[in-house]
């Protein structure tokens, strides 16, 4: 295995950031977190990543707006939307995301999706 793949988690809920950080680090990824969309975009400018896990409902800039900004600058960067809400799937603005995973205590689906994208 060469260099570790980098994942950026953007979620205003610190517990989620913490949990995903622990879990994906265990799986061998390098994980950074941001607790707002704004900080996430800032972090992306400083350091390139291989995948973004993005929450939608966040105070200030929401995930949908962040997604647009991410794609307009790096349109090949995979983004997984990770939300407790399913109805944002109806919003076409989320369709440009690579995948949409609903939040759950069971991280199997999210892990599988990340694996599929980064290690196909």
């Amino acid at each position: 295995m060469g260099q570790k793949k980098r994942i950026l988690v953007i979620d205003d809920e610190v517990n989620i950031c913490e949990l995903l950080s622990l879990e994906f680090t265990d799986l061998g990824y390098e994980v950074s977190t941001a607790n707002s969309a704004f900080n996430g975009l800032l972090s992306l400018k400083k350091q390139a990543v291989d995948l973004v896990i993005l929450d939608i409902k966040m105070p200030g800039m929401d995930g949908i707006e962040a997604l647009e900004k991410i794609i307009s600058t790096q349109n090949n960067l995979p983004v997984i939307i990770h939300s407790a809400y399913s109805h944002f799937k109806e919003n076409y603005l989320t369709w440009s995301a690579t995948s949409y995973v609903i939040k759950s205590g069971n991280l199997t689906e999210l892990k599988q999706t990340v694996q599929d994208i980064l290690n196909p």
Partner: protein
Amino acid sequence: MIYQEVLFQNLDKILNVWMIIDSDYKIVHWSQPAKQQFGFNEDEINNQSFSVLLPEFVTEELFFENLLDSNQSVTSLINQSAKLKQKNNIIIDVEFSIFKLTHEDKILLLLSLDNITEEVELQQLVNSKMKQLNERFHQMNDDQLDQTIYDIFGAVLVSITAGQGLQFNRAFLLYIDQKSESLKGIQAIGPGSGEEAGKIYQEFDQTPKTLTEMITHYQNLKYQKDFLVNEMVQQINVKLDDYEHILIQPLVTQKYIIVNDNSLNVNDPSVIWLRQLLSVSECIIIPMIWHGRSIGVIIADNQVTRRPITNLDIKKLTRFTKTAVNVIESVRLLIKLEESITNVKKANLQIRESQAILVQKEKLAAMGELVAHMAHEVRGPLAIIGGFARRVFNQTATRSKHYDSLKRIVETVDTLELVINDILSSSVPEKVDQGRCDSSKVINRVIALMEEEILKREISVNVNLQGNLPNINIKEHHLFEIISNLVKNSVEAIDKNGLLIILANYVKEKIIFTIQDTGPGFPSTEIEKIFSPFYTTKKDGTGLGLVVVKKLVEKNGGSIEVTSVPTKGTTFKITFSEHYSE
């Protein structure tokens, strides 16, 4: 004798329009008003034939019926109506009576009449309105007679038999039943036998004399249903197409008939049948006419007293029948109106009930939304609890004393998540508020937004929107996204100096948008690729515009087609069905 002379001198004031006609139908005397009525002057009236007053196709024989027939006992025609002609050929409606006068061996006819033209015209006006009303309510059990109607029938019959003026012994009412196309006996009043006659007249004698009181009394008679005459009349049922029948003839001719020993048709089977049935030698049959339409007949006779029916009787009865018919039919119409009002009220009540149900449903829907919202809100924290629990659990050895506790936490969170999923999938479908969208408005908005860009690039735009485009079942911002993406693509493809065509047409319940440009186009091999993400020919494009367009079109039940010719240009065609709904 002097009084008679005075009377004769003033006869014009009493009878007004009258004339005397001889047995050759020559008018031998005109009253002054008669001359004026028909427009003849002194010189023209001498020995004038009555035919000058008759409209085409009406003969004197027809007009005077059998009055001059010496075998006939009929000596008068009372309150009849007909059309006559004035000198200036204007036809007028008249109500007339004719009396046969005999002087020595000469027969003369006295005709007196009233001009009722205006009345008839007014009647016709009322007719058509009434007919409309009647037709409108016709479907509502027309053949079922209300108890109110029976009471009115009773009142009519009481008036004919027991009234101050009419005083016939018996009266029978027969009505046309449209369903069975026959004339049916409905109700009758009068003694069925001599004994009963005594009983009834005794009772009527003891009762007060006003009509209303008599009617109330009649209604209270406990044996009213048992009147023999009622049984008798209810046996009568004559088909309407039996034109020769004595009971049908008055319906056809709309003239009364007197049946007695001297009748011309005394040997007619139906006449024999009727006289036997009523066991009477003389009776009068009067048609009931409602705005020109025959609706039944009244039969009246003097079976008990055997008093002959006089001209005066006929005059009173014909007038009375007119009024009675008016009352009966008005009440019938009122009953129908009442019924329809009841129905409308019922319908109103139903509407209100269903409105209440709707409100209830909306409340439930609002509650459902609330529940859904809460479920979503719970899902986030639950993911954290479950995530950390599972993490710890995965790292705990089976022999650890915490293993079992952690397992329980993980399992319970899993169950809770399933419960939430259940709630969300069953309670409320996420609200999709489709709107009826005015596509012309959207297109115009897109063009307005792009105007600057279009001018800058010197692009000619040809917009052609068919008038009266139906609205489409799509959210406005969805349609806006579709159109603006395609227009933006085209404008960028043209770059400079080209033509952009935007069409909207409505064909066979489908709305078709065409967006065509004179840009560089692309080879047909590329067509499949253009809708895949990140395909772009532009330097700084994201390649997502067309992906979004396609998804939005399909989501709203439409289809998208593209044709392109390299160096000539590209055409997008989007089709929506008018009636599509999710």
